[in-house]
């Protein structure tokens, strides 16, 4: 793979699904290129198919038409070497401890117990959860669970991290803290991140680039380069530039 090749390339993707009334278009003419190391947020109203699009990028769902290449590999099935995925809350296995949850992807590949334990411990430290290794998910707060989930997504060191509304179930305060936390993890690891959300604030705060999708059938209606300086700070949310960004997204999706 040449360094100029994008990390994610989606070409001519269309998706329709079968309902009682016949074929319903869900995603129309999606073309996306994401360069390595970028933090890209896909934002859109609920039901626009943004989560489905992410599931297709992860290889969990086959599009009706079009190709998806991640790091040069066609994502016709999940490829844990390429992409780690962080889901919404409640995706941790409640019968495993925090450490065992992070180890889970490694244990599927029969990696030696000691190696995977060390690796998982390292990742838990990265997300600030050292000392919580032996806790079960029900003993952790919502924010902590999502940290474990992020650690699990990164444990195989994939170049690409996909996140499906990971903070949607969290309260406002935790959500902001988690956003900052995620940005600092991203700065440290320099992964390519594709982040799906319906929150305009989250999109503008986190992204290098925002891909705006329309209501169903989902199509890309805008791409916004976010020129806010990094590292992002909470105070930036009250700047004119931030408000303009939010307004630009809002004007496109409000219909």
């Amino acid at each position, binding site marked *: 793979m040449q360094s100029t090749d994008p990390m994610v390339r989606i070409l001519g993707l269309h998706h329709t699904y079968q309902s009682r009334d016949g074929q319903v278009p869900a995603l129309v003419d999606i073309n996306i290129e994401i360069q390595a190391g970028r933090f890209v947020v896909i934002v859109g109203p609920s039901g626009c198919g943004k989560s489905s699009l992410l599931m297709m990028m992860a290889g969990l769902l086959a599009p009706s038409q079009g190709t998806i290449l991640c790091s040069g590999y066609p994502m016709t099935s*999940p490829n844990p070497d390429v992409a780690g*995925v962080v889901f*919404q809350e*409640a*995706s941790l*296995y409640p019968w495993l401890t925090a450490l065992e949850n992070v180890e889970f992807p490694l244990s*599927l590949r029969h990696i030696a117990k000691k190696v995977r334990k060390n690796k998982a411990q390292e990742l838990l430290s990265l997300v600030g959860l050292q000392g919580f290794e032996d806790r079960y998910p029900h003993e952790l707060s919502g924010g902590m669970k999502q940290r474990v989930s992020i650690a699990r997504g990164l444990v195989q060191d994939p170049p690409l991290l996909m996140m499906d509304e990971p903070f949607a179930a969290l309260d406002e305060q935790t959500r902001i803290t988690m956003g900052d936390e995620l940005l600092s993890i991203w700065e440290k690891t320099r992964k390519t991140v594709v982040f799906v959300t319906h929150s305009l604030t989250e999109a503008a705060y986190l992204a290098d680039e925002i891909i705006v999708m329309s209501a169903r059938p989902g199509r890309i209606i805008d791409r916004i380069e976010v020129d806010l300086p990094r590292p992002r700070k909470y105070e930036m949310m009250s700047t004119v530039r931030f408000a303009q960004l939010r307004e630009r997204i809002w004007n496109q999706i409000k219909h």
Partner: protein
Amino acid sequence: MFLWQLLLSNQWVNPDLVPSVGGVLSSAEKILLSAAFHKHLYATLEHLALGFFIAVPTGVAIGILIAESRYWGQVLKPIIYLVFSIPKTVFLPMFILAFGIGLFQKIAFGIFSTIFIILICTFAAVDSVKSEHLKVARVFGASRLQIALRVYLPSMAPILLEAVRLGMIFNVTGIILAEMYASKVGLGQMIANWGENFMLKELGAGILIISVATILFNETIQWFEMKFEHWRE
């Protein structure tokens, strides 16, 4: 037991119909030590074990197959729920006509009594597997076998243990009834016999023994549930 003795000593209940606590306990001791009891006990344990170890795995396997198939789920689930609500006792005479009164009939009726609750619990257990948990396993490259062992099994375990517990209750009920109704051996037959011959102390003792045994089984399973489900809220 205190209440029982109190009722008796105050003659609030007819002492001809309700034997004394001491009488029942000493009968229980005698019965437990008698060779005849052991013969009947082994017969019943044989019926229970065979019925149980056939009904539970078969029920779970068939339950998973039905729950995982869209078509068969839609066709068979409603029928199974309907049959479940019929008291199985009404079918006992048919089992005697079909299978006679031997070992085979006891086991067949035990399985028939047990399998519906196992099927229904298995449906619930399969439903309890979260689609998010399956997605996680797939996204990290789990094979089908790994998904079965690492996601399905632990997700379903709590409800399946409950199924084992309930299944044994239905199994005991079915088998003791089949033994009481028509049998040459078994604890059910002993109890029916004592009842017909007005041997109330022995009857009380028999009831006591079976009650203690089933409660112990129940508690053991519940202990396992506690032990394996420390991760639950």
